[in-house]
């Protein structure tokens, strides 16, 4: 059993770290929260040049057939930098769904562009209550003249307003299931409304669909199987988000430890106080247990092993751990840590969001409860 990075993984980890140290700044992150695009096209382009978008795709579609572990380490770096982008929604929530289920035509049309970073895409499948449940979908696709008309709404769609394509999950009226349609982001009838969320002004969107036309050729995989296709990606998404949490916790610990070592009160650094030391240890325990748990699940995905349970464990654990670490971080950094000038708030916001994305702790624990046969 080896918990350490091998040479290649260390390289990916180090180069990701270097990249974000160069490309991220507190200023940029604060600007992006106000920015109506919600991401930096310049940084996106540079990520594409590094081949990050292409890592998980087959060579015949322009990808690198790389390791999911490497991908996970990149996500960890993203979490540590707090850099927002349509990376996950493009690569996993569209790209992998198409790679795993789409027709040759669809794969050839979209995957090379996605792999090159030339196509930004996102998945629209949540209703306005943000409930991760097939029954709460608010999109309907009616069969009309050999094609479809899609109406309804989807919310919390990341980057829908800048997306070249929107993969939308709609209940098809003729069959029992949910069907996935690969739509043009600016198709007639699509209206994107920016929501101002904890992540900023240009990330989450409410998307209204009014009789949006779609052809059978735009269906990904088989009609009626769309929800299963989304569910099949759930472990990968859960683990990717868990790794983002690990990266975020890493940075919060750095901020907190720096502070308690430097801040002098009562003639001593805060770090001389036992209570402060114990709070730091509590953060470290959350971080280290999260790290192993996320890496273990990422490794299982990489090995092609079934990891429904372990992915749920990782997401529930890391999602809640990151949040707790930011809370301890605030307690340790006091007033300074609470000011907008200090970077902690960026992570506090991310942590809260990541806690809930693709299922909060109780959602994941329900998966574990099912898995252990309760």
């Amino acid at each position, binding site marked *: 059993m080896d*918990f350490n990075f091998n040479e290649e993984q260390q390289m990916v980890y180090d180069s990701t770290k270097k990249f974000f140290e160069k490309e991220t700044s507190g200023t940029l992150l604060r600007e992006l929260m106000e920015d109506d695009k919600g991401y930096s096209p310049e940084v996106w382009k540079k990520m594409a040049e590094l081949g990050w978008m292409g890592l998980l795709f087959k060579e015949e579609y322009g990808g690198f057939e790389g390791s999911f572990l490497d991908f996970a380490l990149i996500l960890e770096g993203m979490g540590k930098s707090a850099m927002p982008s349509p990376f996950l929604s493009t690569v996993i929530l569209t790209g992998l769904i198409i790679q795993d289920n789409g027709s040759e035509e669809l794969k050839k049309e979209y995957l090379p562009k996605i792999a090159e970073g030339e196509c930004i895409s996102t998945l629209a499948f949540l209703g306005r209550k943000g409930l991760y449940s097939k029954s709460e979908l608010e999109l309907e696709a009616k069969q009309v003249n050999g094609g479809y008309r899609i109406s309804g709404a989807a919310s919390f769609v990341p980057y829908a307003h800048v997306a070249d394509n929107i993969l939308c999950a709609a209940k098809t009226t003729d069959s029992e299931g949910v069907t996935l349609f690969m739509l043009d982001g600016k198709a007639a009838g699509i209206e994107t409304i920016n929501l101002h969320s904890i992540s900023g002004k240009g990330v989450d969107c409410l998307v209204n669909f009014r009789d949006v036309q779609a052809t059978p050729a735009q269906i990904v995989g088989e009609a009626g199987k769309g929800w299963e296709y989304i569910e099949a990606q759930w472990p990968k998404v859960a683990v990717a988000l868990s790794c983002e949490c690990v990266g975020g916790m890493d940075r919060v610990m750095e901020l907190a430890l720096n502070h308690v070592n430097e801040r002098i009160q009562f003639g001593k650094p805060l770090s001389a106080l036992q209570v402060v030391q114990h709070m730091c240890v509590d953060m*470290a325990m959350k971080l280290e*247990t999260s790290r*192993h748990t996320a890496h273990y699940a990422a490794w299982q995905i990489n090995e092609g092993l079934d990891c429904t349970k372990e992915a749920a464990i990782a997401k529930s654990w890391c999602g809640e751990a990151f949040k707790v670490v930011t809370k301890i971080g605030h307690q340790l950094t006091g007033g300074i840590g609470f000011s907008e000038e200090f970077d902690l708030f960026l992570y506090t916001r991310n942590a809260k969001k990541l806690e809930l994305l693709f299922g909060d702790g109780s959602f994941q624990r329900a998966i574990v409860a099912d898995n252990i046969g*309760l």
Partner: protein
Amino acid sequence: MDFKFTEEQVQFREEVKEFVTTEKEKGIFPFGNNCWMHLSSMEFSKEVAKNGLIGIAWPKEHGGRGMGYVDRVIMLEEMFRAGAPVAYHFMADRQVAPGIIHFGSDFLKKEFLPKIRNAEVCFCLLFSEPDAGSDLANCRTTAVEEGDYYIVNGQKVWTSNGHIADYGWALVKTNLDPAVSRYNAFSEMVIDMKSPGVTVRPLINSAGAHSFNEVYFDNVKVPKEYLVGTKDNGFRQIMTNLDFERAGIERLMQNSLTLDSLKDYVKTNDKGGKPLSQDPLIRDSIAKLEIEFEVGKLFIYYVASLLDKGKIPSYEAAMGKTFCTLYEAKLADVATTLMGLPGLLMPGSPEAPCNGMACEDYLWSPSYTLQGGVVEVLKNIVAQRGLKLGRKKK
């Protein structure tokens, strides 16, 4: 990064599982919670020895199998999962033998390693004293040189299985010079518990069990050959032992049977015509325990992998023990809460589910976060050695 067990390890786990199942089915050995602390059976330990499962991590030249710490975790995981009564040989296997191998003379190695390996002797640990718990260096038991012997006077406390043990693995003060630092004043030595002058008195714990003892030493003669390592270097020798003591899966699985009995209880008991296990809150609570167990288990394997790499897990072992023992205490608490009033029936009571396992566990549970290093002291270790906090700036 590779979390795969080797084929040998997979086979080894099966080997241990089979052994444990066979022994359990005999129906003659006491299986249950707290098995490494409290369930002692020389006969069972002899079966363990016969099957080559004592000393697996010792070097081959000392009678071991030269296996690693990950292998040891695999073995103990399966033994604790079944609640196998390993107390007779556990302390000797876990830390006395490694201590003798690292620091002991050829005499001690020849005298004790084969006997430990064959489950012919039981060792207890003689560390804590009334004035020395977390502050172990505050020990007062002395060992004064007199000819070919050390004369030992003093008292030890919380001695698990002191009433069964043939020998004790003792920390004693051999340097009484007040100018010498406390940390350079102790030695480790083996003490024959049947020596004249040794008195063992039972201590009953909160759970009503006789597991601990007080051990009094009144001019006990200990042959000089029984000194372990270097005189006055005992404290440092013990410190290396402690990482092994803290790193094990016994810190996670002392009450692992309680989780099984809890899952069983909620599946076989109804409320309003539906099994309790269908209640979403109960499912969530049990899933929380399951998750914390899996997270803790992964961490234990991590610490074992560090040991196998030859690294000293000076703060990782402390972190692991903190995490895992807090989980153990939580398990006992949640189990009794979810089982409700029936969960408060004691072993032997009519109507007690799973023979009162949960209630008994709850009564043992305060000890999990105390024994072998209280959580708060362990956190100090993690803070100072791991996070480098509280060091004076130069």
